[in-house]
């Protein structure tokens, strides 16, 4: 049973104030660095949205903290030590990804120490969501997104060619009419795959299905959904440039394209989810 008596809540905060104080100090620094170094350079501005969502998720689950629980002692100190060590490396070497990751580990160890494993499990979604506050490290970006961008270019070109447009492709450069469009901008980094993954997780959380199959399927399908959304975006940009010229096309790229991509992906996720649900219902009905 969850005890929501306000006095008990305040009592708990008061008892743990040194920890809360320490966490605020540590996270303020990271937040400052996030804003001034990372988010400022992100043209699509997902960072603050992810932060708000993360805080919202934590707020949603706040009642779990007032449950009875079994704190874990020694193991949590070991995890805390690991987290602090990683924080030291991440902070001193100015590797923001390591800094943020270490903070997730530190929070986990503290939750384990005060409240135990079941509470940690219940806040695991917002904890993992913190990862999306930073863009993907360049290494991973280069490895995953380059092949994907190439594939997106191929499919977009084939589609337009099948519709009899004067289109040709060389690598990731699409030529349509007299215009040349560079599909991949690998040197500038790509955030959309990660943002879409975050969107998928968000959707999963909001919908909160009991069915394991549905959750896993949806999680896996994020990648093809992202691929499809990106392909549709490339086709849209290409056609807009073809009909309205370079300036309009480039304007779309830097303006509405991100939002457009998000909406397409959202639409796809919802459609596929409905399809999965319908299939599962049918399956259960037959059985």
């Amino acid at each position: 049973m969850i005890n929501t008596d306000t006095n008990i809540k305040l009592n708990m905060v008061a008892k743990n104030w040194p920890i809360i104080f320490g966490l605020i100090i540590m996270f303020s620094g990271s937040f400052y660095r996030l804003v001034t170094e990372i988010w400022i350079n992100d043209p699509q501005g997902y960072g603050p949205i992810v932060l708000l969502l993360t805080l919202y998720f934590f707020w949603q689950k706040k009642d779990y903290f007032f449950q009875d629980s079994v704190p874990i002692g020694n193991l949590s100190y070991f995890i805390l030590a690991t987290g602090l060590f990683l924080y030291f490396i991440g902070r001193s070497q100015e590797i923001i990804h390591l800094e943020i990751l270490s903070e997730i580990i530190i929070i986990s160890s503290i939750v384990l120490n005060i409240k135990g494993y079941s509470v940690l499990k219940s806040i695991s979604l917002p904890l993992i969501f913190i990862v999306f506050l930073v863009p993907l490290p360049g290494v991973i970006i280069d490895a995953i997104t380059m092949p994907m961008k190439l594939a997106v270019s191929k499919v977009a070109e084939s589609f337009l060619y099948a519709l009899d447009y004067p289109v040709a492709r060389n690598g990731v450069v699409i030529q349509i009419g007299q215009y040349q469009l560079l599909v991949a901008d690998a040197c500038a980094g790509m955030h959309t795959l990660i943002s879409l993954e975050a969107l998928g997780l968000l959707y999963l959380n909001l919908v909160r299905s009991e069915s394991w199959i549905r959750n896993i399927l949806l999680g896996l399908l994020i990648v093809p959904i992202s691929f499809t959304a990106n392909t549709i975006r490339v086709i849209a940009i290409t056609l807009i440039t073809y009909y309205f010229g370079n300036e309009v096309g480039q304007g779309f790229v830097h303006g509405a394209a991100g939002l457009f991509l998000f909406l397409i992906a959202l639409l796809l996720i919802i459609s596929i989810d409905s399809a999965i649900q319908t299939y599962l219902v049918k399956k259960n009905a037959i059985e």
Partner: protein
Amino acid sequence: MKRKFKNYLIGFLLVIFTSVSPFFEANQFIADSSLRFNLEETFPKTFGNWRMIESDTIPIINPEQNELVHKLYSQNYAHTYINSAGDVVILVIAYGKDQTKDTQLHYPEVCYRAQGFNIDSLAPSMIVTSKGPIKVEKMLASNSNRYEAVTYWTTLGNKVVNGGAQLRFLKLQYGLKRQIPDGLLFRVSTVSNRLGDTQHGYKTQNEFINSLIDHLSPEYRLWLTGIES
């Protein structure tokens, strides 16, 4: 352990780590404590039987798309050289003072691809010079108009290291010594519209690099190739 003591301990640890870690940040630029040169002013315009072509008639593929070049590189030296036999090479030296942040250099295989080339091959190799060997990467890039055979290497601080785990490890080493390493991309390429010219292209590049090494001062050589003499 009493709960209250535990709380104070954890809070204390958090504050300590937050306040002390910044003091271990790297703040010494290797560029400031080593001999570096202004390429446009001092890099040799003639050496051996090579000379620089003042007007560039061959389009040079920039290491990056144009907006990025100025952001990433403290110096970007891009010129064509010709020898007495009429062979032409494109030389690009892209140098960045801070290789630790997002101003670090990008690799040709990534940027050529991003500009529409296909990477036909990429493999590690070795150039043997009179002063010592240099570990290089040999790449072949192509698009509908041309084949570009490329020999390149990259440095971090005063060492040649071509990416991978080795690079990350070396960066960490510098970081733990609180040093910020600089680095450069040294890229020599030959262009042709025939695949059959590729082998001759690599030979030409080899010859160019060898001749250059012979004519550089020891400090210049150390900076550009990591070779100590």
